[in-house]
């Protein structure tokens, strides 16, 4: 047994570790088991207290790549950053990337991750051609839209519970190079955000906004809107900088009400926030935090909570709901260092339990201050529930079973697909009897 935690550094759970290095091996017989990729989900979807974690990073081989069709076949422990390194010189890029490229293909499928281009291309699952699912009884299922479709849909967004994804075939998308061109502009209110999103979503592949959550000043919801498209540009690609790493965990987190407010103020006022014509290398645009490895240590020993919800419905309702949330957050004095706002597109997700759905998604993070933080998050759940929204399991470490079953009323349909020898800390928590 070895203690470990995920990206939020909280909670810490004890589990047996089994390293997988050969995709032809049988699964070990060590229930309950759960695949663990690169540990970038924030809460406990990738933890398995008292059980076994199947570490998949050793399954990191490319199998085939067709530079004409852009279909890549690889083992499931490969990182999106490794795919980019291989395929970008040929003009191919993962169709969907979340805010970090340091996630495995298996994790991307199991959480059906989304990116800044959801309004155009949907989520990760939409670009999975096929994968191989290994069950603990020895069965290996080839899953695609046409073959074992129900297993395909259960496994996309299936939180690793349906078996081990050993390898996958992905449809990449063409890009002209490493550059992304677009602009960045400040906005003063949530209404202004929705207007910008409305204007931009048709013309820009990537749109995302950063939101100032630290101030209770009216109007609520000022921020910075960024948008961009892959472009051909003659500038030479900058020499890749080796990422720095945060090498120690501060005993007291420097993140507090004052620094959060200061950071948000500076972030809003920095000159680059208002840039009518910007050219970014894809790295800082798509993966701004990958340049600082282990940045999650900044929150100190007690770690932090992420909170990401999606609010469906008409824009007027969403503005009201978001304002309510922002008021609650500002009132808590906890602030949020990085708040991200994004309009999802209308493309229905393929996964049975996928998170992305039409509406607006808000992501926040909070240092773990025990009860105070939990109470705030519980209140946010109540607001999300009332709005008919949902909270993202990949980022969650604390939502109640009641909330989960409310957010994902179809959760019972996943049950027949769950491998009897697989489970996770998250799953045991959210299916606990609520009576």
């Amino acid at each position, binding site marked *: 047994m*070895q203690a*470990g*935690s*995920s990206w939020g550094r909280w909670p810490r759970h004890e589990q047996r*570790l089994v*390293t997988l*290095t*050969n*995709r*032809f091996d049988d699964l070990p017989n060590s229930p309950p088991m759960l695949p*663990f990729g*690169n*540990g970038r989900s924030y809460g406990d979807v990738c933890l398995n207290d008292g059980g076994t974690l199947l*570490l998949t*990073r*050793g399954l*990191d*081989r*490319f*199998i*085939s*790549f067709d530079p004409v069709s852009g279909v890549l076949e690889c083992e499931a*422990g490969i990182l999106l950053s490794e795919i980019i390194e*291989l395929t970008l010189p040929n003009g191919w890029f993962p169709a969907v990337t979340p805010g970090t490229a340091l996630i495995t293909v298996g994790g991307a499928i199991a959480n059906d991750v989304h990116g800044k281009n959801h309004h155009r291309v949907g989520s990760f699952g939409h670009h999975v051609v096929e994968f191989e699912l290994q069950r603990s009884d020895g069965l290996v299922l080839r899953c695609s839209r046409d073959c074992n479709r129900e297993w395909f849909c259960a496994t996309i967004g299936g939180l690793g519970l349906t078996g081990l994804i050993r390898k996958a075939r992905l449809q990449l998308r063409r890009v002209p190079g490493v550059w992304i061109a677009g602009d960045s502009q400040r906005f003063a209110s949530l209404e202004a955000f929705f207007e910008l999103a409305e204007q931009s979503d048709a013309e820009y592949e990537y749109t995302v906004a950063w939101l100032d959550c630290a101030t209770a000043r009216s109007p609520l919801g000022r921020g910075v809107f960024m948008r961009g498209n892959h472009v051909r540009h003659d500038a030479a690609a900058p020499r890749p900088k080796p990422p720095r790493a945060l090498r120690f965990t501060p005993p007291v987190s420097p993140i507090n009400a004052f620094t959060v407010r200061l950071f948000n103020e500076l972030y809003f006022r920095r000159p680059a926030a208002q840039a009518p014509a910007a050219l970014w290398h894809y790295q800082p645009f798509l993966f701004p935090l990958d340049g600082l*490895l*282990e940045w999650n240590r900044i929150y100190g020993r007690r770690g932090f909570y992420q909170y990401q919800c999606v609010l469906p419905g008409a824009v007027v309702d969403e503005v009201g709901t978001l304002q309510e949330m922002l008021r609650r957050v500002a009132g808590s004095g906890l602030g949020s260092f990085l708040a991200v706002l994004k309009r999802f597109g209308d493309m229905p997700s393929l996964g049975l339990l996928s998170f992305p759905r039409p509406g607006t998604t808000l992501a926040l993070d909070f240092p773990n201050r025990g009860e105070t933080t939990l109470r705030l998050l519980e209140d946010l759940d109540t607001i999300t529930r009332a709005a008919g929204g949902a909270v993202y399991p990949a980022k969650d470490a604390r939502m109640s079973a009641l909330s989960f079953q409310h957010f994902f009323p179809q959760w019972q349909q996943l049950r027949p697909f769950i491998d009897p020898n697989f489970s996770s800390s998250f799953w045991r928590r959210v299916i606990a009897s609520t009576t």
Partner: protein
Amino acid sequence: MNRILIMGATSAIAEATARKFAARGDALFLVARNAQRLQAVADDLQLRGAHTVQAYLLDACEIDSYPTMLDAAMAQMGGIDAALIAHGTLSDQLACQASTDLLRQEFTTNAVSCMVLCTHLANRFEAQRHGVIAVISSVAGDRGRQSNYVYGAAKAAVTAFTSGLRQRLYPQGVRVVTVKPGFIATPMTAAFKKGVLWASPEAVARSIVHAMDRGAPVVYTPWFWRPIMWIVASVPEFIFRRLRI
């Protein structure tokens, strides 16, 4: 472009090192005994940029087949510029104490096979007057310990053998590199870090490539094993024999 033969190509260290060769476009000839795994590694290296990749199935215990294998490598790549010998097993010490058959078998796999292959390579490289032979030994070969002295003895043989071979081939411009890794961690993430003594195969691969290009003839990897093993080797016997390590 270098033409490189890799023995034991599916081992973690060999694979990590081969990826570095592939990234710079070397031609690779991979030898291992498990067909499926070998093919998986070969496909991967081809995609990662290797000039050519040939997979050759052979169990390291089939020592008599080495000349045939080497002929195939020379024919398919048009010659060999460097070889990395990375095959081996981590012997089960207690089982070897109980079975002398197993003891002999382990010694054959970890020492004799390696010395035979080195000899074949040395004779060919000597004739062509260039080449690099890199051999994975181990810090365990620096001093026998009760917990793994069968493995340690085999690695000690490899270390001594390559030391002598290095002298013999020096005038011919053929280099011999002895690599002594410490503890190698299997691929892990930051969430489950092992102690500071554990190195990733990737880090070990980096020092192997550096040593094969131009580095020191004897490489401890990571470097801090050199002072650690110096201390271990310096402990007087009257103390050492009482230690439970």
